[in-house]
């Protein structure tokens, strides 16, 4: 069966050009970048070249980039790094951050820090005035994601960063989902710390980066040989870093063609789905959303069975339903934008990538209505069954 991958927010295929530059670093130039000999120098030089490419994607200087094992570690280092340096204080973040930020904040709360979780509106937007009024003298960092990984909402981080900067508070942005899809210039945008992850932009898994503006002081969370200016010790993952560097270079180069292409596909996907399927809704913002994100909810069906059914038709997608999560709780993002649990369970995320074709889209637009219809036929919540109406009513009241 032909397979169609529409889960690019979860991870992406490694680009062929990325593979090519990476490969020699496994078996030919395999040195440890800390070594003095020629193998070590090759590794070191390749790493510094990659660092430059990562920096260029976001308008930073090379020496403001440290490599990490992924987006999660970058988020952890940024927030804990500042917190441990300051020793106490308040963190401001939003209620729709990725768990890499949210769970880090919760861990810091358990250690005695205070955290303010800002609400979002029904489109998933953080309101800059909320940031303004939340900030206090004890605020040590403001961390707001650039774009949300579930509903794709792009936040007004430039405004928020301005507030932070005017108040002398470091501003961190999780740009794991936005990098390569929304342009980023850390200098113009006044960003102090920014997280990236390679595997979301056609680079290899297990690599990420943290931008740390010159002068911003943080403590490490992993201790050891002093790699990455002492902020992230461990023998550097050179093939991964080289691949990530190339992925950043390609992301920058291709953005001008990728973005309009993705937007065209996305809008077709959104419009046709809302048209074809009754009681279907779009989650997130209509315009301030990632070029590749379509996030729906369908009345009376449950997300896990929806994505399992799509999988049966060869379509890879994702849901915010509790049934697909380890904690059996519906997506905190969907709850934060004001959906009730039943609505959250009926969600579907399709995230596009540069290799998706219009033909693939047509296939999805055929398959999706069929799948939704079948599940609604099985569902006691769908229309006719009056005995069940009481549940729906109860739900709607909440």
């Amino acid at each position: 069966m032909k397979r169609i991958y529409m889960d690019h927010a979860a991870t992406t295929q490694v680009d062929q050009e990325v593979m090519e530059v990476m490969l020699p670093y496994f078996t030919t130039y395999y040195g440890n970048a800390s070594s003095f000999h020629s193998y070590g120098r090759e590794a070191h030089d390749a790493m510094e070249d990659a660092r430059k490419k990562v920096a260029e994607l976001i308008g930073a200087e090379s020496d403001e980039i440290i490599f990490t094992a992924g987006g999660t570690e970058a988020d952890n280092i940024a927030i804990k790094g500042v917190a441990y340096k300051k020793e106490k204080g308040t963190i401001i973040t939003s209620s729709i951050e990725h768990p890499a930020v949210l769970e880090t904040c919760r861990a810091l709360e358990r250690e005695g820090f205070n955290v303010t979780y800002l609400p979002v509106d029904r489109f998933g937007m953080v309101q800059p005035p909320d940031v303004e009024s939340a900030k206090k003298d004890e605020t040590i960092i403001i961390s707001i994601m650039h774009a949300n990984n579930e509903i794709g909402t792009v936040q007004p981080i430039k405004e928020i960063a301005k507030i932070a900067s005017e108040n002398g508070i470091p501003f961190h942005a999780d740009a794991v989902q936005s990098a390569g899809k929304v342009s980023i210039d850390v200098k113009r945008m006044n960003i102090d710390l920014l997280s990236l992850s390679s595997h979301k932009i056609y680079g290899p898994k297990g690599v990420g980066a943290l931008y740390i503006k010159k002068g911003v002081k943080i403590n490490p969370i992993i201790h050891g040989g002093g790699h990455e200016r002492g902020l992230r010790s461990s023998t550097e993952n050179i093939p991964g870093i080289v691949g990530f560097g190339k992925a950043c270079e390609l992301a920058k180069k291709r953005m001008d063609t990728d973005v309009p292409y993705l937007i065209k596909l996305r809008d077709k996907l959104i419009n046709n789905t809302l048209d074809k399927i009754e009681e279907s809704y779009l989650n997130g913002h209509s315009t301030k959303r990632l070029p590749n994100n379509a996030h729906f909810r369908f009345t009376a069906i449950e997300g896990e069975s929806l994505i399992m059914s799509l999988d049966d038709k060869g379509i890879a997608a994702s849901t915010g339903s509790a049934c697909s999560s380890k904690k059996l709780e519906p997506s905190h993002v969907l709850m934060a934008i004001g959906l009730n649990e039943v609505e959250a369970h009926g969600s579907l995320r399709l995230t596009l990538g540069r290799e998706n074709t219009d033909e693939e889209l047509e296939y999805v637009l055929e398959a999706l209505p069929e799948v939704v219809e079948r599940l609604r036929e099985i569902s006691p919540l769908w229309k006719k069954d009056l005995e069940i109406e009481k549940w729906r009513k109860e739900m709607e009241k909440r």
Partner: protein
Amino acid sequence: MYSEKVIELFRNPRNMGEIENRDGVGTVGNPICGDLMTIYIKVDGDRLKDVKFKTFGCAAAIATSSMITELAKGKTIEEALQITRDDVAEELDGLPPIKMHCSNLAADGLHAAIEDYKRKKE
């Protein structure tokens, strides 16, 4: 994570739908948790002549619903009341641990439908 049997029944559930002139109906679960099942029964003497279901929920919920209808159909009411959640899970070659308690409600749904039948008969 799911057994072949779960996936097969999820894909092709047996006895899906309502029974128009049913003798009992039971609804269990809570859509807040992502699972809601309705089991319909038609009784002939002391036997379950027909058992059908409608389910909102994950693949496990749909498969267990389908499985309970197959297990119960043709059984006496007494026999049907003996069917447990574990029987259902076992017949499905197991369920992921995390799903054992939330999506494995079908036996409860059957029992609720039988209660409903008994109540109506009184």
